[in-house]
């Protein structure tokens, strides 16, 4: 429904690109299998999902309370909370701090929220270098592409692609072995960690009763970003709140299993404020930027509020037959896959990319693997309804209205209806029937079932006459 020509061509190209298809298919299959294995070994998995969904629901229904509690606790530990209505305000704060402290370079650990507000670009426009440090994100940054997958940003690239990206981006020789490539990234980025004035991170959870943020990762880059520079700034969405640190016992059992099939990620860091008296290391300044950027609007919609439950594990991407075909770059916004398909229309308005909720077979695989039980297929249906409602309201689609009025009239005139049926049967047999007019787009990728040589009515009459 109403996809731009450009988008359609891009999707067709992605589907026709066998190298891309192989890379995406095998990466997502691997993640799927690993998740399946560890989930099966956890007898209380379903109970944990139910518990996690209930905790998220509770936290969102009382969000103002928990945000204030979180803020008070951050302040009590010597940190500061900065509220940002949107990306301008979030970036503005970081730029102010960078200017005041004379910082020219920042290191970043993986954060979808900063992707959402194009933070790197905003910083670079003001002469501040922003370096991604997660291996996959770093590859994507050098390739000048956004991440392809929430947790495996460069999963669509082969090692040969990556060797080329490093050769071009770093102006140095680089072999095809992942070990060498990771070693090269380690050497280059190590310098950056030790030189950077500010480390920017996201947050997986904001723990209200502790005023702390929780970050999961495997490489150690998030630990470095939040430990080595003198200033740590976490940029995060207001929906990431959970009530208590003890609730992490539930969420941590689900997150790594759903994301990468691990029991826990290599590093799980709970960070509550700047270095304290007696500590030998850690940042001297600690800021949490709490950003709205449309989240409060989603919150107001009770029917779809659970969209904000998402803990960004990426399991729905790996399970989705559509994502696995079209890939992460063919979704209109930062968030791809089934979760992107339900939150993008809510953030951007349903008419911006009205095709998005329709680009699904509603197979339900996403809902089945979601660790916080977001009913994605149901929300897709709700959004389809919203698209149609807003369209009708805008009365932009007169053609459809007339078509149904005409159909209704035809149904009430049996003779004319029969005639139309006969004409339709002839028309459908013409070789160009689905190549022209309103059926052309539909016909591009489909074979039309041939009408029977005799209509039902005609057969009925014959049988009656034969008796």
């Amino acid at each position: 429904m109403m996809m731009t020509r450009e988008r359609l061509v891009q999707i067709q190209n992605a589907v026709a690109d066998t190298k891309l298809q192989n890379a995406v298919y095998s990466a997502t299959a691997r993640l799927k299998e690993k998740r399946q294995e560890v989930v099966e070994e956890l007898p209380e998995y379903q109970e944990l999902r139910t518990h996690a969904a209930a905790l998220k629901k509770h936290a969102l229904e009382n969000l103002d309370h928990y945000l204030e509690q979180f803020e008070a606790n951050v302040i009590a530990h010597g940190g500061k909370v900065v509220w940002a209505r949107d990306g301008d305000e979030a970036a503005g704060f970081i730029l102010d701090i960078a200017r005041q402290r004379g910082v020219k370079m920042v290191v970043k650990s993986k954060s979808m929220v900063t992707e959402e507000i194009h933070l790197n670009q905003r910083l670079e426009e003001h002469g501040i270098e922003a370096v991604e440090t997660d291996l996959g994100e770093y590859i994507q940054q050098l390739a000048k592409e956004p991440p392809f997958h929430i947790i495996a940003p460069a999963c669509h690239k082969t090692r040969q692609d990556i060797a080329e990206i490093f050769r071009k981006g770093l102006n140095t020789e680089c072999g095809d072995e992942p070990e060498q490539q990771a070693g090269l990234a380690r050497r280059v980025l190590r310098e950056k960690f030790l030189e950077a004035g500010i480390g920017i991170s996201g947050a997986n959870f904001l723990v209200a009763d502790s005023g702390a943020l929780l970050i999961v990762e495997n490489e150690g880059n998030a630990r470095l970003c939040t430990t080595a520079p003198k200033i740590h700034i976490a940029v995060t969405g207001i929906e990431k709140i959970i009530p208590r640190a003890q609730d992490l016992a539930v969420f941590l059992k689900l997150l790594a299993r759903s994301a990468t099939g691990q029991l826990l990620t290599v590093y799980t860091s709970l960070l509550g404020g700047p270095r304290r008296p007696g500590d030998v290391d850690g940042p001297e300044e600690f800021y949490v930027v709490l950003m709205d950027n449309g989240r409060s609007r989603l919150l107001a919609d009770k029917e779809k509020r659970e969209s904000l439950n998402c803990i960004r594990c990426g399991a729905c991407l790996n399970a989705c037959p559509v994502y696995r075909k079209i890939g992460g770059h063919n979704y209109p916004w930062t968030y791809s896959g089934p979760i992107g398909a339900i939150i993008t229309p809510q953030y951007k308005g349903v008419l911006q990319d009205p095709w998005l909720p329709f680009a699904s077979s509603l197979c339900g695989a996403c809902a089945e693997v979601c660790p916080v039980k977001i009913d994605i297929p149901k929300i897709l249906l709700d959004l389809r309804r919203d698209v149609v409602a807003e369209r009708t309201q805008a009365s932009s689609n007169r053609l459809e209205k007339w078509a149904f009025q005409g159909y209704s009239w035809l149904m009430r005139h049996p003779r004319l209806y029969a005639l139309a049926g006969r004409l339709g049967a002839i028309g459908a047999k013409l070789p160009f029937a689905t190549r022209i007019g309103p059926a052309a787009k539909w016909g591009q990728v489909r074979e039309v079932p041939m009408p029977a040589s005799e209509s039902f009515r005609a057969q009925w009459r014959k049988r009656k006459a034969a008796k």
Partner: protein
Amino acid sequence: MAEAEGGEVTAREEILGRVRAALGRNPGQPVKPPAAPRLRIPEIPADERFGLFQTRLEALGGKVYRAPALADAGRLVTQIRPPGPAVASNAPILREAGITSLPDILTGLTEESRLRDVCASAACGITGADYGMAQTGSLVTIAANESRLVSLLPPVHIALLRLSRLLTGLDEFYTLVPKPAGGACSTVFITGPSRSADIEMILVRGVHGPKAIHVIVVEE
């Protein structure tokens, strides 16, 4: 930027206002507490914990040793450590085990810039661990007792863990330490050596953190 200028609505007030409007709540309206935390400590006998911990951590490429006494731990460190200078954190257990007086070990560093330089060039970082978690093969290091950089910058990490501090798993940890951030600015679970599978899903160890981790569990 959140400060009010001449009666302007701050971002804080506006966001909280929007949230309250979305939820139909009033400022300061009390909250019905959520269901009790779900913490169920599994029954794993103390003598099985070590085996489980070892299985889990070694499956990830770590290595686990058992030392009957602190002095044995010191000897093990000498055998395990790679050639070159090592940096030891200021955890008391390392001094008690005699590790801080081993040759070519830098320790007692309290100045951050010096600590960074030493860690960045050391062949090995030696720390204590506040707890272990058997079910996941994890170490818990708490910043009030442990340096953050010593377990992070050098390519090899050796940690000493007391057997009595080896817990079953997450539920037992959060029961014992309900609010970790109350006592320290950083509480890190370390589960195996640093790794990435960002290139073709192929496992690479030691991407930014250590590529090897050795844990000596001390019975004493």
